[in-house]
């Protein structure tokens, strides 16, 4: 594991103590990234960036405040400490506020292979060439691919360090790499855009750029000739990426902040059925080289594998120390740091695969919608009410018949998870959140 320097954090925490903070913790991110986009074979935009941010949380007894800065000069850091300690004096006492108990902190940072240590760094030209190859494959896939929003290659290296005023100081380093391609298909005056991507912690684990380009092209092409359908209540199949979006909504409702605010449809549902019996959902932060993995959470607690839903029954919420204390529970080690302090975040969140192939799931539908894209923000986290714009393919007699657009799919998330009638065997952890193909018994499709 790469050594991450925690001295700066430790000195900032020491100053907070001198300024009257009774406890404090700090998080430091240093990040270097590069991206290159290519459009129609020409370089479009090349970006080099270097960023750093130190965020600090201070406690004055049971009151707390947060501050952060991207200016790590001595004068600026002193100002941040002073501002945070001053702010803590104006916030109210909160009996649940505070750092985790020192005994809970991780003692050994596990090696999760989150950093690509291949020595030969690629040149910008080679990276641009990777994006060019991906786009070229999309453009060559079919004469109807007539235009492109471009292809992008990116890489990012980051170092994280966390320290607390009770002496904890640990860090880790990560890398990530990705390629995306967004071709445009056209036919008879109609234009359709779609995209595909690959992303990984190690460059070698990226999919072949040409394969990404061809998949992107196929996705754009299959949308040509899309039409609206009649309003109806029908079975819906969500492709893996769209099924993963449903999982993100569940995770948000299972998050401590939504729960203690009583703003969640999973409130008071621990130990009860929240999904069909075949549904199992886990959050596993210890998978080697996975994008969502991290050795410890935003409060220094050991990452682990959490079962959220087992056989359709809600087993656990997602909690940081504060929301856990509010709810009278223990932290599930899901604290995440953002600019404004500490929140809750998942690691590698997955709905576990079933046994049916995606083709078999489609074959099981006489008339219904296979959803490949969702747009908009029509998810109500308090009630679970769900209504989003959708595009995809109409299923007729078990076959994908024609593309569909300008429709909505609507229901309620609890009802939708209860009505899961089929779970695909095609789980692939392509991103931090992943699901297999899911079949939901019925939802309302609104169109003509």
């Amino acid at each position, binding site marked *: 594991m790469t050594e991450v320097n925690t001295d700066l954090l430790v000195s900032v925490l020491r100053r907070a103590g001198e300024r009257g903070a009774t406890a404090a913790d700090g998080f430091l991110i240093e990040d270097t990234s590069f991206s290159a986009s290519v459009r129609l074979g020409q*370089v479009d935009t090349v970006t080099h*960036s270097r*960023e750093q941010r130190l965020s600090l949380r201070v406690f004055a007894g049971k009151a707390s405040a947060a501050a952060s800065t991207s*200016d790590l000069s001595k004068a600026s850091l002193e100002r941040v400490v002073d501002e945070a300690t001053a702010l803590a004096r104006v*916030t109210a006492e909160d009996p649940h506020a505070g750092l985790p108990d020192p005994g809970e902190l991780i003692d050994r940072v596990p090696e999760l292979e989150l950093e690509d240590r291949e020595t030969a760094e690629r040149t910008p030209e080679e990276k641009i060439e990777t994006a060019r190859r991906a786009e070229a494959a999309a453009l060559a896939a079919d004469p109807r691919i007539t235009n492109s929003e471009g292809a992008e290659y990116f890489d990012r290296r980051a170092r994280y360090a966390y320290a607390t005023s009770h002496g904890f100081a640990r860090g880790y380093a990560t890398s990530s790499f990705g390629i995306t391609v967004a071709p445009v298909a056209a036919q008879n005056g109609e234009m359709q855009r779609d995209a595909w991507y690959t992303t990984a912690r190690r460059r070698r684990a990226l999919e072949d750029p040409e394969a990404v380009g061809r998949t992107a092209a196929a996705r754009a092409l299959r*949308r040509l000739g899309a039409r609206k359908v009649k309003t109806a209540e029908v079975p819906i199949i969500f492709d893996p990426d769209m099924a993963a979006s449903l999982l993100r909504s569940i995770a948000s409702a299972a998050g401590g902040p939504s729960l203690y605010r009583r703003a969640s449809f999973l409130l008071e549902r621990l130990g009860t059925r929240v999904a069909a019996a075949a549904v199992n959902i886990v959050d596993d932060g210890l998978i080697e080289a996975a994008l969502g993995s991290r050795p410890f959470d935003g409060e220094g607690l050991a990452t682990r594998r959490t079962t959220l839903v087992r056989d359709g029954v809600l087993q656990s919420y997602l909690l940081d120390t504060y929301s856990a204390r509010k709810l009278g529970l223990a932290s599930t080690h899901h604290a995440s740091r953002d600019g404004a*302090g500490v929140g809750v975040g998942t690691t590698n969140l997955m709905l576990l695969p079933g046994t049916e192939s995606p083709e078999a799931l489609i074959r099981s539908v006489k008339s219904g919608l296979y959803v490949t894209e969702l747009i908009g923000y*029509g998810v109500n986290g308090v009630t679970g009410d769900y209504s989003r*714009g959708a595009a995809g393919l109409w299923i007729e007699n078990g076959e994908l018949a024609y593309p569909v657009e300008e429709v909505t799919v609507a229901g309620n998330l609890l009802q939708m998870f209860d009505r899961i009638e089929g779970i695909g065997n095609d789980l692939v952890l392509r991103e931090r959140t992943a699901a297999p193909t899911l079949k939901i018994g019925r939802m309302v499709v*609104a169109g003509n």
Partner: protein
Amino acid sequence: MSEPERQQPERFFSNRFNVTPQLMERLLGENLARRVDDADIYLEYRVNEELVLEENVVKKASRHVSQGAGVRAQAGPRTGYAHTDDISIANLTEAAHQARAIADRAGESGTLAVPGRGRPHDLYTLAEAPIVTELARKLDLLRKVDAACRAADARVKQVIVSLASEEIVMLIATASGWTVGDVRPLTRLNVTAIAEEGGKREIGSFGGGGRVGFDFFLEAARWQRFASEAARQAVLKLDAVDAPAGTMTVVLGPGWPGILLHEAIGHGLEGDFNRKGTSAFSGRIGQKVASELVTVVDDGTIANRRGSLNVDDEGTPTGRTVLIEHGILRGYLQDRLNARLMGMAPTGNGRRESFAHPPLPRMTNTFMLAGGDDPGDILRSVANGLYAVSFGGGQVDITSGKFVFSASEAYLIENGKVTRPVKGATLIGNGPDALTRVSRVGHDLELDEGVGTCGKDGQSVPVGVGLPTIRIDEMTVGGTAV
């Protein structure tokens, strides 16, 4: 930052980082000019403060400082961009070299673009910037809003009040020798109410703000209205029935429902998509894309509005751009790059989230001009349909033109009367033809309260929208009641 510095970006960056306009110009001249078609150096210093009250007490207070510089070089359609959050001469020089590599690589250099100069506006000079208003006054307001929201209805069980204040000091130097700075205040008060009754829970949210001082919230009983509106929306939804599903007549209320314009046509008229030919509106200037009742403008020059700017993030003064005039598509929203490549003038719509992002053509305040109809008459003209007055977010697929926006407060219209509230539902349409079905336009144009944030390519910027009451004859409503 001290008071005089806050008014003078040039002095601010020179005092704090030893980076003067002269130095920026020299850096551009030595490293970029004559090798590229356009180049600029953008410096930014930003302070954000957020105060959050929940469970009757102020629980969260945070303050964030970020600073940095972005250097951009352009040759033909290519952009090299490098940014650093350590503003020093050495880093700026390195960034200039990285950005320039893009131009050198192609071995091509053209004539330098001359950006549209002009006087920057003076749209938000404030007696006291919201970021410097003393905490005690802010905390007092949060407590009063909390109490007012709870007092509005006994079914309100949770209230979250947040007050965000921001100030950005920016300075941009372009390769053609034009240096301009801006100091941008921004504030927003937001109230979220959670109502409970008989085991049912619902959420209501209301807020507003702009490039205004803290006292804005105290004027015209604004904070009381924000508090009672959040409570009213939450309680109202407890009794909401399922929204209808299918195609029907939709009446949109004035103000924030203008998000329709933002999604249905605004994004599709941004210069980048049209230069690339990937927008559903590409090549359609001069064509009819809306009913003749419809005139839509984007105006970044309205004093104190959330979407307004004295100059855009490329140094071009903002303007008022007519997008649709009596149904005919008239113009695009342009940054410097896309304007140059399309042979058009920049419109002052080059915006970026921060120094860490290259500018893109973006909207400012986008709204439809008022028509002549009485809003009550418009509602009475509808036999059966949906009346939507408040919305959550929206999204658009630029290429296919399909857009959505999600109603958070809506009612059934039955026999010309507004009747039962319905649950939230997404409305979906096709940008190039949705506005052709606008059959009535009210005389009641309103701009939104100042809450909008627009996302594009991972960059968020504050925007405004506005709309009079309008009737759209056919729109698909994504409810569950078949």
